[in-house]
């Protein structure tokens, strides 16, 4: 009797577990069903070999948005990676345990703040500052990079911190016993040993930066053109989908879904890369 009950529980848990995978499968299927016809009919050339996006004239070049997405992501990494890794190093090696136990949950809380709040703060406080110091419209690549750079901090910090804390204590002791300072130990032994974990954190942060939509819509200005400088306004791929999907019909709608396919593939590649790096323990 007991055995029977056990079996039922086991099977239902299996179904629950697979339902998430099934949902992912459905989403993928849906995006591809809607977007693939456009790619099949036009090839990728119509998306990639044009800098002009004006659906009313039937031109669907995503290059401006691609440049927007990539430059903002890159900017976010320039800000977020050094800050995040430095913070992880401090928490792992230099701070006291009590301080770490206070700061770590607070940093994780940063990830829980809705992105619209980040966007709001960027729009109200950051954009005017950028406008008055650098000129331009204020809603720009730079503004978005700063906002996104802060948004990806929790991801980078917590994954890098875990990677550093997982290292055996003996690495530190072995290095210090040879007369290394704490900083020499960090740069010479601990960072190289934890580099796969840190890299995985950076890649996941990058995925988050590319995928972020709401905050980006609020601080980039959303003009569809190839940006000429970092204080120019721009539009990202995600923002483009969110802004136009509401009224798009026909080929326009398909083109947006095709954009989604490109984003989807990009994120999947980044995540697979991150997982591979985490799995591949050094030496």
């Amino acid at each position, binding site marked *: 009797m007991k055995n029977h009950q056990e079996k039922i529980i086991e099977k239902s848990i299996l179904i629950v577990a697979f339902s998430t995978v099934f949902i992912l499968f459905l989403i993928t299927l849906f995006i591809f069903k809607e977007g693939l016809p456009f790619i099949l009919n036009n090839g990728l050339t119509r998306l990639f070999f044009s800098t002009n996006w004006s659906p009313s004239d039937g031109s669907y070049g995503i290059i401006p948005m691609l440049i927007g997405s990539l430059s903002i992501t890159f900017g976010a990494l320039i800000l977020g990676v050094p800050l995040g890794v430095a913070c992880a190093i401090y928490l792992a090696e230099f701070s*006291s345990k009590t301080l770490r136990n206070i700061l770590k949950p607070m940093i994780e809380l940063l990830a829980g703040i809705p992105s619209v709040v980040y966007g709001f703060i960027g729009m109200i406080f950051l954009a005017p500052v950028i406008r008055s110091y650098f000129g331009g419209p204020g809603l720009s690549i730079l503004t978005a990079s700063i906002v996104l750079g802060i948004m990806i901090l929790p991801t980078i910090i917590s994954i890098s911190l875990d990677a550093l804390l997982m290292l*055996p204590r*003996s*690495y*530190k*002791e*072995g*290095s*210090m*016993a*040879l*007369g*290394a*300072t704490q900083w*020499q130990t960090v740069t*010479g*032994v601990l960072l*190289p*040993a934890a580099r796969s974990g840190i890299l995985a954190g950076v890649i996941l942060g990058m995925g988050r930066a590319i995928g972020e939509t709401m905050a980006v819509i609020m601080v980039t200005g959303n003009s569809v053109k190839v940006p000429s400088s970092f204080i120019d306004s721009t539009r990202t791929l995600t923002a483009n989908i969110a802004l136009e999907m509401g009224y798009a019909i026909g080929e326009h709608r398909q083109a947006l879904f095709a954009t989604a396919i490109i984003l989807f593939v990009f994120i999947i590649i980044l995540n697979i890369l991150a997982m591979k790096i985490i799995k591949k323990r*050094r*030496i």
Partner: protein
Amino acid sequence: MKKKIAVLHLNVFIKDKIILKDINLDVYENEILSIIGPANSGKSSFLRVINRMLDINSDFRVEGNVFIDGEDIYKTNVNICDLRKRIGIIFALPVPLPLSIYDNLIYGPLLHKKISVERLNGLVEKCLKSASLWEEVKDRLHLSALQLSGGQQQRLCLARSLMVEPEIILFDEPCSGLDPVSTSKVERTMFELKKRYTLILVTNNTKQAARVSDRTAFLLSGKLIEVDQTKQIFTSPKSKLTNDYITGRFG
């Protein structure tokens, strides 16, 4: 014989718990001093006091004095990194860094000064030979150190601490995880090293202490019960406690 280390009225507390009580002990140049005693008697902590590895532990307190070459190492103006360079330590578990054999060895010297590649290579060969590891690894110096056997890793750690040209080498139960063959290799190496360095050996293995050391100290619950010539300790110890411990009648 010249005094290398002088320990005077040393009390050590970790988290307000007393670990070492009023230790007075001298260590002479070019000798091997064994420290024996049951677990938790403060042997390892004693070693960590001497090279100030205890400092990594934030919650500790040291009273009394430790002099090395007449200089108090707990004075505030002591450069701890320099001190640790002068005093190598070999831990119970080998601690190779996650680098190649060669990089493990050159890690220490490069921390302290720039050295030419030729001199480094010469130093690597010399230290590996001193640690009797050269023959086994000379063709695969760029292999990861983590792929060596336990005994080889331990000798690599020994070679690595020799690379920074220390004066004193501390052994913290260096053979506890090794097989008899590796153990005898490490012991033979210690005999060789004695000519140039001052050695302190903490060991759970009383037979090992009897085999390799010139003098032996017996620690019990943080107190130094007795220190004397090894022969004396193992044939006619003054204290009954020492006698009980080395004959295995303890507790």
